Structures are given as structure tokens and as C-alpha cells.
């Protein structure tokens, strides 16, 4: 297919209404390949709805979402979108509690997702090594055989990020990764995301301005379902309207 855009992710005039309430209102923006973008905005600005649209959970009423230049995500379902290479981390850490840390990663590992393949699947040495490697990155090697239910909040956040990495996505959507984390954990998470960004495109939704500053990337501020301001963190936080609706005086 002929690429329609050079951007990795391109939202064009996306509108989503719930019972007359416009969660997204003609939202348009583009994420370039290899970029890390922070999305900020007050509650109800449409940040999570935007992620729902991109991952196929919600269908927009209007507009297009193009991925990798040629795939229209509004026509695909969650599984197909995940297979294209979009990984999502939820606001509330969601891991499989009755599985071990190791099994959580095993399930996330890029592989044939069909039921038939899963029946006959056996772990190969490269897959084993990949899990070892991921455990190193997310610092959970010591607890690999523990059930995910027994992990601390911060460890769960990392496990979920590890699961995202295991999918080897081109684009990671990360919803509030440092909510409820200690300062040290927040710091470590910022480092982890920067590390990940070396190979992959990342979109981070976050409220914690100190964290966004730490990331040092381009910021998009949403308000009432559309883009209010875009630019460096200093430009955006100097914007009159952003100060008014979000940061406060």
C-alpha cells in the first residue's frame, strides 16, 4: 500500500461522543517514528479516550487514525492492532495476577497468537533468553517465580512495561506510568522509558509535571478533546491558555 503519511501515528479529525458529550473533538496530531511524546491535560481532556481509539477499544464517530502510513486503525479490532505493533499500558497496572512474573512475560512475548499455536507451543532457548533479558531490564529477576499478585505497586508497573517490551511493539502507549510511585521509582521509570525510546516510539500520558520535565520531550496538551498547545515543556507551560485550564496560576 502507498503510504499516506510519513508519521508513525497520525490522527486526523477524530471525534468521539458519548451520549452527546464530546470526549474527542476533531482531534488531530502526528507522532513521528522514533519520537517520544508526552501528552498532558486536565481530567476529561480525552487522553484515555485517545488511547482507546488508537488501540481499537473505541470506534470514533468521525476521523481517521493512520498507523505506519497505511493502516487505518479505525477499521481494525484490538487483537489486529496489537499484532500491527501497538502496545498499551493501562492507567491502573493490569497484569495477570494468578500467573508468575515469568509467565506474564511469556504470554506477552511476540509469537503466533492463534489458539492452535498456543496449544502446541513450547519454549525455545531464544525465547528463554529474551525473558531473562527483559527481567534484567525491568529489575524483576529475583522475583521471576513469584505470582504477580504478590508484587508491589511499582513492581507491577514495571512488569507491565516489561510485557509491553516483550510484544516488541513499534509504538508504546503508556498511561500514567508513575502514578502512585515513590520518587526513586519515578526517576527509575523515566530512565527506563528513555532507554526504551532508543528503539521504539513512545507516547506517555502523564499528570506529573516533574516527570514530564525529566523526560525532556515534546509535549502535547489536550483540552476538551482537542490539542490546546504543542511544543517543548517550557513553551507549553508558558502558554496562557495551558496555564489557565491546566497548570493553574
Amino acid at each position: 500500500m502507498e503510504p499516506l503519511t510519513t508519521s508513525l501515528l497520525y490522527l486526523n479529525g477524530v471525534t468521539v461522543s458519548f451520549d452527546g458529550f464530546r470526549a474527542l473533538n476533531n482531534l488531530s496530531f502526528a507522532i513521528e517514528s522514533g519520537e517520544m511524546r508526552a501528552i498532558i491535560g486536565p481530567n476529561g481532556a480525552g487522553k484515555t479516550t485517545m488511547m482507546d481509539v488508537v488501540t481499537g477499544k473505541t470506534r470514533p464517530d468521525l476521523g481517521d487514525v493512520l498507523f505506519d502510513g497505511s493502516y487505518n486503525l479505525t477499521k481494525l479490532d484490538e487483537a489486529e492492532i496489537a499484532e500491527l505493533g501497538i502496545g498499551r499500558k493501562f492507567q491502573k497496572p493490569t497484569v495477570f495476577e494468578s500467573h508468575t512474573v515469568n509467565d506474564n512475560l511469556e504470554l506477552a512475548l511476540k509469537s503466533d497468537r492463534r489458539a492452535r499455536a498456543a496449544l502446541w507451543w513450547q519454549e525455545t532457548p531464544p525465547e528463554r533468553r529474551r525473558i531473562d533479558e527483559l527481567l534484567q531490564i525491568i529489575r524483576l529477576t529475583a522475583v521471576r517465580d513469584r505470582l504477580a499478585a504478590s508484587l508491589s505497586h511499582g513492581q507491577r508497573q514495571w512488569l507491565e512495561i516489561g510485557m509491553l517490551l516483550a510484544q516488541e511493539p513499534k509504538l508504546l502507549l503508556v498511561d500514567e506510568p508513575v502514578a502512585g510511585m515513590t520518587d526513586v521509582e519515578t526517576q527509575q521509570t523515566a530512565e527506563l522509558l528513555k532507554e526504551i525510546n532508543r528503539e521504539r516510539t513512545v507516547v506517555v500520558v502523564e499528570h506529573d509535571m516533574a516527570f514530564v520535565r525529566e523526560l525532556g520531550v515534546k509535549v502535547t496538551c489536550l483540552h476538551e478533546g482537542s490539542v490546546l498547545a504543542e511544543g517543548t515543556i517550557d513553551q507549553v507551560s508558558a502558554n496562557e491558555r495551558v496555564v489557565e485550564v491546566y497548570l493553574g496560576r
Partner: protein
Amino acid sequence: MMAHILIRSIDRGATIFLIIVAAIAIGVPILNLALPPSSDFHIPLYLVALFGKYTCYALLALSIDLIWGFCGILSLGHGAFFALGGYAMGMYLMRQIGTRGVYADPILPDFMVFLNWKELPVYWYGFQFFPYALLMVVLVPGVLAFVFGWFAFRSRVTGVYLSIITQALTFALMLGFFRNNFGFGGNNGLTDFKDLLGFNVQSEATRNALFSISCVALIIAFLLCRAIVTSKFGKVLIAIRDAEARTRFLGYRVESYKLLVFTLSACMAGVAGALYVPQVGIINPSEFAPGNSIEAVIWVAVGGRGTLTGAALGAVLVNYAKTYFTSGFLAPYWLFMLGALFIGVTLLLPRGIVGTLYHWTALRRDRASAAAEEGVTDPLPAE
């Protein structure tokens, strides 16, 4: 490959279960056939038939546990698949009666002659052949479950809504099978069976053989379930049970997994029904009654869902209690007792009997390993 799967599937609990079932499969017929009735260890024939019934129920419970305990699909209509398997076997047994029926029609079963039917309905064709009947035992529940599941899971019907429509499914089938013109004997169902593959279904030897075959079917189904739940497929099922949306965002097509396991479970329930019918000697529409399906769910809850062995144990225990209590002066209160049992288990023993046992052993092991870890991380101070 097979050896690898077998090793993976059989843990300590599974070994104990397999040994017990195998011992019963061999022991019960020996104690019935080889010992004289005067012996203290002799098992009377009515008990063999009763145990056979329990074994079929255990198989049904296993099929429910596979979808409920591991994938979170609470079917309140699994009795329908059990009954369909039973009817398929019943149709074979009916056609074996031949001229020995009251009306001595070589082709038509008695109830059709009674209803003045002149010809055998097309859907009764082929049931005189045992292999065909066996195929139908698996195929009819399987196809129904596939079609039902295809619509339900694709539309993402989950939780109590799914439970309600499974309940409606079995109720609708019950109403259908009650009708005479449905062609399955209506109200009276199928009964008065004579023989199965030429063996008299009433005879001592046949009853013992049917009992042993039921045990073997239970063993095979158990091994199949274990192989499934210990595979990556099984891990995906548990993932779906615990966090369905997460599983979708990982790229798994949840509906295909659900559909496959639901269909397989229905086939297993059908086999259980087919083994049940020759042992109890009758199949009628009351087997479709919604209450039966709910009762089967209670067995699984009592034994411990997600344990497989617990489901089988629960089926035997609750049915033994049922046999015991419904034959005495407490008989009118059995349903109250069953309800109380369900509430009691839900409140006091949410993991069920076997689930609680597993939980305890896991706790003890965790404590032991935590203690061991402490020993390692806190070395004795150097002198």
C-alpha cells in the same frame, strides 16, 4: 512431544487422582463379580450402577470446571449438552430394541407407533449404527456449542449475561423435547432399552463394564484437561479469566480461545451424558431442566473450581449426599440443604475443598522458602 506433554500435565495431585480412579475402575467390578454376595466386601449391583452415575457426573463437572474454573465462563446450561449426548445414545439404544418392543415394529420405536407415525423421521436415520451414534454423541453438543459460542463470544457477551442465555438455551431445549411432535418421545423420553452392541444392558457384566468404561472416560478427559490447562493455551485461558481486556491488547483473539474451549467442554459433557443413559436406563426432557445445570455448577464450587480433581470430587460428594439424604425422612428438605451448601461454600470456603487444600500447601511452601531466603540474606555475623 507426547511424553513432554504427559510429564508437564501430571503433578502430585493428578497422580493421586489417576491412581484412585484407576483403582476404583478395576476394584469395584472385582468386588462385585468375584466375591460371593455373602462376603463383607461384596459390592451389590445397585451400588455399581450408582457409582457409574457418579462417575458420569464427575465427567460433567470436569467439563464445567474447564470453562468456569480456567476461563471464567459460567455456563448454567451445561446440562443441555449432557442431555443431548444422552439422547444420541438413547436413540441408538431405542433402535436396538427392534421387534422386542410392545408394538414389535422392526423400525419404529414404540412411541412413534403409538403416535401413529408411519415413517422414521430423517434425523433418526443412521442411529442403528453404533459408530454413527458415537459420532453424534460428540458432534451434536459440539456443533450446538460452537454455533451458540460463535454468536455469544463474538458479540462479547460475558459474565452473568452469558450465564443467563445458557440457562435460556437449556430451558428452550427442554420445552422442545417435551413436545411429542419433536420426535424424541416427548414427556416420557427414551427408555425400555434392551441391549448395547449385543450385550444386555441389565446384565451384571454389562453394568460392570459400563462402570469401568466411565472411569476410563473420566481418566482420558482428565488427562486432556490437564494437558490443556498446563499448555500455553491454558495460560491464555487463565489470563482471559483474570483480565480479558489486557489479553486482547496483547493481541490474543479472546473469542477464538473461548469458542474452542467451550466447544470442547460441550463435547465432554455429551460423552458424560452418553455413558449415563445406558446406566440409568432412561433419558427424558427433565435432564434439560435448568436446575440440573445449576446443581452441576454447585458440585464444582464445592470441590474447588480451577482444580479439576476438585470438580470430580465435588460431583461425587454432593451426589452421595443427595442419595443419602433424599432416601430418608430428610428428603423434602434436600433442595434447602443444597442451597445452604452452596451459600456456605461461597462464604466460608470460596476456594472449595481441593482449592483450599492447594492453598494451604502453597502457603506452607511460601513460608518455608521465605524462611530459607532469610537464612541466606542474613548471614551469621562474623566473629
